[in-house]
């Protein structure tokens, strides 16, 4: 039997990459949650743990947290339903990670014949940058995303604890209420895009910024006032979807399942050590995936505005030069800021032999190296060595588009954190009220308006 080794290895690499994409954001998010909440509330946030005197604005605390959660005692209460209790955190985590498989993080990476020849391949190989290319990609997300609540429900039920059970109940009721609005928002976008494949959805949003989903997916807007209808449809669908994402990820205005004021910790009250860490990471992974899906549906996915994949490949050298020579002054500014921080009262108050005096020097060195690297990148761009090769532009396009999605995800998750520390929690009846009596009618109206827009859009584009 002929085993397609190359395809297997490529698929495996893509799995590892998408896993790493989600998992590397999680520690950043935990740090950001602490630091952003601190700054919003006029506190300093984490700033004491350090490695060799480098505190990195509290990033070290995240590392310390991981060590703590691994080393802590794993308590298994005697009254839990063991089988389901063990399964719950695994379900929560794996579901959160599975959802990311259909999100594209770049258009196809074409390996030239010179590379494929290494393993005896014939001709160039085009690798789509998406783990699973499913025809109903968005439906897959809806299906798997709602499975996430099973982890919460299992935990709530298996813990044999009133608080946990209430948390699980609330999670499932909330899921039922908000899934509808989310589904209708997605239906709206299906109508606008005409496809459920996420790679096609992302590809349709390439080019100028008004191709993005929030603007109603329109190729050439012109000055027709009817364009506003598209903006309203896209904007409403985005609002509905984004609110539902908050409910789906159990984030702040809707985090009733773990409302600590009345439920202590909700569904994960009986969990400790790494099992708790799994729930914790699953919440943040959900945030990442929710942001990634929102970016793909509404904000161009991996696309950089006004710079589609073709343009990146044709102008690789110019882009590299601009990035490099733009990065030099930016790095220098950061280096200057880092070096000036040694004059802060904090460092003046430290004893002379304190190890943390290294910090300004360390960051000066880091940013100087960064400036040198940027300079090198600019020189490479000027020399025009990369653009001429077959592989170079492909890799640059891959890096830029993945970076673009990464930035959008970071902004989305930052927005979630920002909302969390701004809005108080809903009461349970208010939550149900908002879901059934406000969002559902608005969602139905949006779908109808979208039908109108799809017809009007053709007229606008024809004009």
């Amino acid at each position, binding site marked *: 039997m002929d085993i397609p080794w190359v395809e297997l290895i490529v698929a495996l690499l893509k799995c590892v990459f998408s896993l790493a994409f989600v998992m590397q954001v999680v520690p950043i998010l935990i740090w950001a949650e602490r630091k952003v909440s601190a700054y*919003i509330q*006029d*506190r*300093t946030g984490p700033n004491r743990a350090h490695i060799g005197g480098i505190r990195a604005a509290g990033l070290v605390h995240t590392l310390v947290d991981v060590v703590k959660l691994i080393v802590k005692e794993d308590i298994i209460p005697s009254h839990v339903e063991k089988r389901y209790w063990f399964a719950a955190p695994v379900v929560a985590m794996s579901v959160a990670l599975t959802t990311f498989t259909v999100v594209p993080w770049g258009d196809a990476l074409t390996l030239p014949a010179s590379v494929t020849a290494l393993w005896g391949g014939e001709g160039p190989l085009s690798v789509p940058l998406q783990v699973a290319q499913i025809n109903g990609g968005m439906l897959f997300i809806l299906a798997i995303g709602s499975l996430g609540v099973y982890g919460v429900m299992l935990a709530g039920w298996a813990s044999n604890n009133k608080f946990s059970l209430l948390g699980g109940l609330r999670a499932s009721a909330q899921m039922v209420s908000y899934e509808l609005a989310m589904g209708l928002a997605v239906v709206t976008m299906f109508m606008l895009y005409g496809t459920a494949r996420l790679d096609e959805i992302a590809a349709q949003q390439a080019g100028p910024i008004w191709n993005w989903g929030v603007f109603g997916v329109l190729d050439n807007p012109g000055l027709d006032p009817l364009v506003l209808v598209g903006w309203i449809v896209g904007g409403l669908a985005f609002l509905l979807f984004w609110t539902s994402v908050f409910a789906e990820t159990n984030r702040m205005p809707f985090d009733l399942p773990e409302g600590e004021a009345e439920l202590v910790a909700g569904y994960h009250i009986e969990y400790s050590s790494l099992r708790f860490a799994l729930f914790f990471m699953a919440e943040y992974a959900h945030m990442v995936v929710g942001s990634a899906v929102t970016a793909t549906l509404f904000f161009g996915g991996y696309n950089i505005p006004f710079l589609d994949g073709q343009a990146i490949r044709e102008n690789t050298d110019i882009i590299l030069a601009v990035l490099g020579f733009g990065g030099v002054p930016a790095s220098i500014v950061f280096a200057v800021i880092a070096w000036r921080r040694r004059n802060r009262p*904090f460092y003046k*108050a430290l004893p002379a032999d304190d190890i943390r005096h290294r910090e300004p020097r360390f960051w000066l060195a880091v940013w100087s190296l960064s400036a040198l690297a940027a300079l090198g990148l600019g020189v490479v761009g000027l020399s025009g060595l990369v653009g001429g090769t077959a592989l170079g532009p492909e890799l640059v396009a891959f890096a830029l588009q993945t970076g673009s999605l990464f930035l959008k995800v970071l902004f989305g998750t930052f927005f979630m954190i*920002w909302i969390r520390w701004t*809005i108080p929690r809903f009461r349970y009846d208010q939550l149900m009220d908002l879901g059934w009596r406000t969002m559902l009618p608005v969602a139905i109206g949006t779908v109808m308006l979208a039908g109108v827009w799809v017809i009007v859009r053709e007229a606008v584009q024809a004009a």
Partner: protein
Amino acid sequence: MTVPALRHERTFVERLYLPEIVKGLYITLRHALKNLFEQDLPTIEYPDVRKPMPERYKGAHRLTTRPDGKVKCVACMCCAQVCPAKCITIQAGEDPNDPIEKYPVEFQIDMLRCIYCGYCVEACPKDAIRMDTGIYEINAFTRQDMVHNKAYMTDLMDGHKPLAETFYRQQAGSAPKGYDTDEQRVLPVDGSRGL
């Protein structure tokens, strides 16, 4: 009597909910950005940075000295008498070179009992005891280390005074009589020391 709750009649814009969220987001973002760029937070990073204490702050006691280095205290017992917590123990003695005034052979304050009322300072006719050191970290693992004696209270050490337990163990002969240098830093739970 029932008092009707004051209810704010919400306007249409407020009932739309989203504009209010945007207002809230603006406020929190303003705080976050201001704190990010100015780094001017009211937090004092305590063990590293310390707030200067006000001049009249009542901290740990000290015994003032005369120009020749002897303590001003004449063991008149005014402070011990006025102390509402009965935490001052003075052992008076006579100096053969000074037939007029007594002096304290030992002067101990049990900081576990002291309530920092400052009466001792007010009662003193010789301005011999003051609470102006600004020291507020008065802590120890054993009860005996919570007793400040004459040697500890006289020596100011230029504002870098260590905790009493360090002082008593490092400065030979400074510890109070009967001080047990072998005592464990943490008390046994069975109370075997007859506490």
